[in-house]
């Protein structure tokens, strides 16, 4: 018992907790951006786009390719780094958008009237295909970017906020707000909301459903491209990261309330925090029974509990108000 108490008190320091919060939010901001893609597609089509995580993965390889072309290193000047990163982001967004559009057209559209199970299985097929394609023709190894945009803002004790983390947070929030405006203000957004609420009625009202669905995929995938750049600034990639990252992003979308844009963001941050704090403190809290290797269990357990007890998510208001 004493041992447990020691564990509990020794692990918890203000610096540690602050740092874990930063870790969680950083991770969460990427989850949130990927989650938007799931959320939008689910809102409009009620389909879990299983291949979305792999679109994100392809994005990370595009980022690698572009930055590799320009030979960026940790010592490159900002005057080179910033335009190259912008270019990488645009390239990743464009390629992911094309990919998302194509996937919908090839693998989902023919199955729009098929039973629910069919598109899900087709999505699994696409996911396999993309992973294996990268592994066969690009690389089956791990890759990182050099440490770009080094530098930080000291916060408290020896904890500091790195520029990259600020960038990640700011861009994910900007993207989110932009998307919200797009859905609220534009005719395309109105079309999306209409299709989400009642597909037949929307069609009768003259909404071009195919176009709306295509755009949903394009926008969601482009956001995954942004997420890919942010991810590469901090983490590493290989052909199979899309699956786990995608799964967690989906969990984030569900936790926040699927179909809901601020919800996806909230869910992403919550999941990132749950993962970081879970991995960091579970051992202290559970008296050493669970270790940090259970990290993924927290994400899944969080998702399962959420689906079972509050399937509508934290923020109930949805793009579609379907009862």
């Amino acid at each position, binding site marked *: 018992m004493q041992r447990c108490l020691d564990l509990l008190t020794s*692990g918890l*320091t203000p*610096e*540690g907790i602050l*740092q*874990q919060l930063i*870790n969680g939010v*950083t*991770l969460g901001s990427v989850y949130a951006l990927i989650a938007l893609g799931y959320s939008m597609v689910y809102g409009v089509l009620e389909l879990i786009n299983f291949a979305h995580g792999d679109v994100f993965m392809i994005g990370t390889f595009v980022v690698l390719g572009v930055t590799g072309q320009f030979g960026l*290193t*940790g010592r490159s000047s900002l005057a080179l780094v910033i335009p190259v990163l912008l270019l990488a982001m645009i390239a990743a967004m464009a390629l992911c958008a094309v990919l998302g559009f194509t996937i919908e057209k090839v693998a989902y559209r023919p199955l729009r009237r098929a039973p629910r199970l069919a598109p899900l299985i087709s999505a699994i097929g696409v996911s396999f295909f993309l992973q294996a394609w990268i*592994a066969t023709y690009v690389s*089956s*190894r*791990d*890759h*990182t970017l*050099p*440490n770009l945009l080094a530098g930080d803002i000291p916060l408290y004790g*020896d904890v*500091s906020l*790195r520029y990259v983390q600020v960038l990640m947070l700011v861009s994910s929030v900007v993207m989110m707000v932009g998307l919200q405006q797009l859905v609220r203000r534009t005719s395309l957004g109105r079309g999306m909301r209409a299709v989400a609420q009642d597909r037949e009625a929307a069609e009768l009202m003259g909404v071009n459903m195919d176009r709306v669905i295509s755009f949903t995929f394009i926008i969601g995938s482009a956001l995954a491209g942004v997420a890919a750049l942010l*991810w590469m600034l*901090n*983490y*590493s*990639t*290989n052909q*199979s*990261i899309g699956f*786990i*990252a995608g799964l967690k992003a989906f969990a984030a979308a569900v936790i926040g309330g699927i179909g809901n844009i601020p919800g996806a963001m909230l869910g992403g941050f919550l999941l990132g925090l749950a*993962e*970081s*704090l*879970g*991995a*960091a403190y579970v051992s202290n809290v559970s008296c050493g029974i669970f*270790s*940090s*290797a259970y*990290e*993924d269990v927290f994400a899944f357990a969080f998702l399962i509990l959420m689906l079972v007890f509050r399937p509508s998510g934290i923020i109930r208001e949805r793009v579609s108000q379907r009862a």
Partner: protein
Amino acid sequence: MIAAPLAILAAACGGGTSGGTSSACNPNAVSAVPASGGSALAAAATARLMAYKPSDPVLKIGFIGMLAGKYQNYGIDAKNGAQLAIDQINSAGGVQYQGTAYTFQLDPVDDNADATQGAQNAQKLVDDQVVAVIGGIFSTATIAESKIFNDNGIAQISPSATNPKYTAQGFKTAFRVIGNDTAQGKTDADFTVKTLGCKNVAILDDKSTYGQGLADSVNTSIPSAGGKIVAREHLDATASDFTAQLTTIKGKHPDAIFYGGYSAQAGPLTSQARKLGIKVPFVMGDGCEDSDYTKLAGADADGNFASNGGPAQNLMSGFTDFNTKFKAKYSQDVFQYAPQAFDAANIIMSAVKTAGGGGGDVKAARAAILGAVAATKDYKGLVQSYTFDSKGDITTSIFTVYKVESGNFKAVKAITTGP
């Protein structure tokens, strides 16, 4: 079946176009070719029959390991090492035993580091009538394969599987030419605590067979070396974000961090640690002592340590020669276990020299080689001198600790364990 007509065609054409040469068109050629075509066919058929004839002096040595996929570097490298050894012996006329000259042929199969596929392809090697096996590379698959080889009485020498369980199953057929995790863990612990003087050590592993095995061993050896374990954390082998674990470790203020795992994660791990402001060195195992690590960690790789089995390459007698030949043949540098696999192949072939190749009977060959391999004593290989103990482990193992300096691993200390 279609070879003969094709041969005729080829010969006829050849005859037609070679008219310009001094040996003019020779009408005999037309009749000669079917004969030679026929004899080629007959020769092929005879060769096939010969393959099963008792006097066949070609012995097959199996290789099992990853030949494709994420960890293919390890497998292909080891396969190439074994192939080089076989090529050298063959070009020297093979191995003589009681008047028979045995030559060798490598039979490589892929286990994808997976237990099920390992067992399947081990069976394939058995079917292929191999007389001994080099491999597997990773421990879990190697252990699964060892059952099949044990069932069939085939000596199996792994160049790289370091999990102690592999030789602790009571199989008489399981050998390895590398020190096991227990020995390596002790080496790493001693190096960290005594040589580096880092008393407070944090231990991190990836929960893989290899990573955790080594980390566990370090975990037990640190206190006996006089150090203290301040944190013990784990990663998931599929994770990309390690900041949670690193933050916890940072809070414990270690003097060094030991990581048990592979370079694919060790690289990003090091970078993330540096970004978090952790400045202490990483000490790692052989899974990280490769160019992937330095590539993935980039500038952050410098100043970290990794140990590996065997002496430093520049200390191996004959390594320069080995590497030159290796590079000439495969146009790449030695990656990891090629020298060990080279030695394993040579141990098998020298077993044939002492005990023979069964005179064509595969079962007899297997038994003879197994007996001779088990009796290996002070065999001078490229890497070190080998003597197997009763379990199949080597009695003396040499480890070398390397340090990354400006992007390359440089040997800093060699440690010998055992009697």
